[in-house]
């Protein structure tokens, strides 16, 4: 039987994308937690180009980059498909997944910046949410995937969970439910799905780690 291993980091939304996809498909896997401040020789061997998590190992073959991994998982295990079958609908789904990939780094940038720079990033985040509200969730769908979550829902996990935690931490208010009613419904629906709800990093733990990391960041800036 083929062995599936996942190298990840518990705080990373990109790691959770892969966990959810594997669980939706009912695939057993071994999870290996990486210390990102001290990356293992195995990780560096399996992802020499980017040296990042997540890395999926299937039959000892490494696959890197979360979106590439998600598409691989969807192709190898076709049950509970994560992309539409129709080529045009699939192209639209891939468009939104790319949008999520391009814009998600803004959310962690919120945490790493302050002052004027942070304000500029916050503005970009707000604009991203506006685009989603106006263009992506039209038609009164429960999820981007329709009645069930698909790869697009999974790709926007940073918006669903990580944004709120970072806002709380940084004392920012970018996402306001009354300003983004469709997005707000989607977030509630997404986080109610059992496979998502049961597999989300604990908010208090996240805040504690963010606080420690922020202190380290500031200390290194002033030294």
């Amino acid at each position, binding site marked *: 039987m083929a062995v599936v291993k996942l190298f990840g980091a518990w705080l990373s939304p990109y790691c959770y994308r892969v966990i959810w996809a594997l669980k939706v498909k009912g695939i057993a896997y071994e999870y290996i937690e990486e210390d990102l401040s001290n990356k293992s020789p195995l990780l560096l061997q399996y992802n020499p180009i980017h040296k990042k998590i997540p890395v999926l190992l299937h039959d000892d073959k490494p*696959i890197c980059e979360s*979106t*590439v991994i998600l*598409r691989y998982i969807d*192709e190898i295990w076709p049950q509970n498909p994560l992309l539409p079958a129709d*080529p045009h609908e*699939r*192209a639209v789904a*891939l468009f939104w997944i790319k949008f999520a990939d391009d814009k998600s780094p803004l959310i962690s940038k919120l945490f790493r910046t302050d002052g004027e720079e942070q304000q500029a990033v916050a503005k970009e985040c707000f604009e991203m949410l506006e685009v989603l509200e106006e*263009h992506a969730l039209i038609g009164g769908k429960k999820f981007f995937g329709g009645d069930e979550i698909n790869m697009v829902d999974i790709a926007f996990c940073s918006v669903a969970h990580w944004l709120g935690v970072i806002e709380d931490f940084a004392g920012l208010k970018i996402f306001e439910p009354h300003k983004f009613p469709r997005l707000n419904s989607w977030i509630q629906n997404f986080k109610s799905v059992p496979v998502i709800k049961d597999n989300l990093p604990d908010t208090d733990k996240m805040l504690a780690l963010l606080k420690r990391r922020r202190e380290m960041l500031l200390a290194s800036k002033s030294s």
Partner: protein
Amino acid sequence: MAEEVVLLDFWPSPFGMRSRIALAEKGIKYEHKEEDLRNKSALLLQMNPVHKKIPVLIHNGKPVCESLIQVQYIDEVWHDKAPLLPSDPYQKATARFWADYVDKKIYEVGGRVWKTKGEKQATAKKELIETLKLLEKELGDKPYFGGESLGYVDVAFIPFYSWFYALEKCGNFSIEAECPKLIAWAKRCMQKESVAKSLPDQQKVYDFILEMKKHFGIE
């Protein structure tokens, strides 16, 4: 049913070139519409309201945005000729990884080569060569990234070759001296009609870059 295929494009765009090559590889007849990016058409704004960018592929009235998504769409819909992506899922994943790498690196680093001077430009040149050498290593002894025939990564990457002359002139360096195998690959691709007729003349691209530099006040 008659297929109606339109490509909204801008001649020096490496992203537009990707779709041109894919359409040519498949022998698809299409209407090519050149956009003036300082005065975007109503059609472009309607078909790509989120980014308002080219290229946009319009197939029977339905838009597909983002060049690599277009290439994948073209490969899926017209799957009976010149397949661009391998059928094996692991090889497909490898191809997607490298196309993603090209997307993340070449345009941004290449942009810094012609947009900056002095130390910033020196850093950009160094990064560009490192990136190209990695790609050269991935190519290895294969005639194409796709193996024996032009594939997804070749289509993703070869358009940037039309910008090499401009980058070399702006940065005063030779890419061929550093990456001879890569240039050999590029010339091999250029022998294919689908590539040769999709890429603009390198001198024309250089003239365009010089105009852009003047426009943005870059020496």
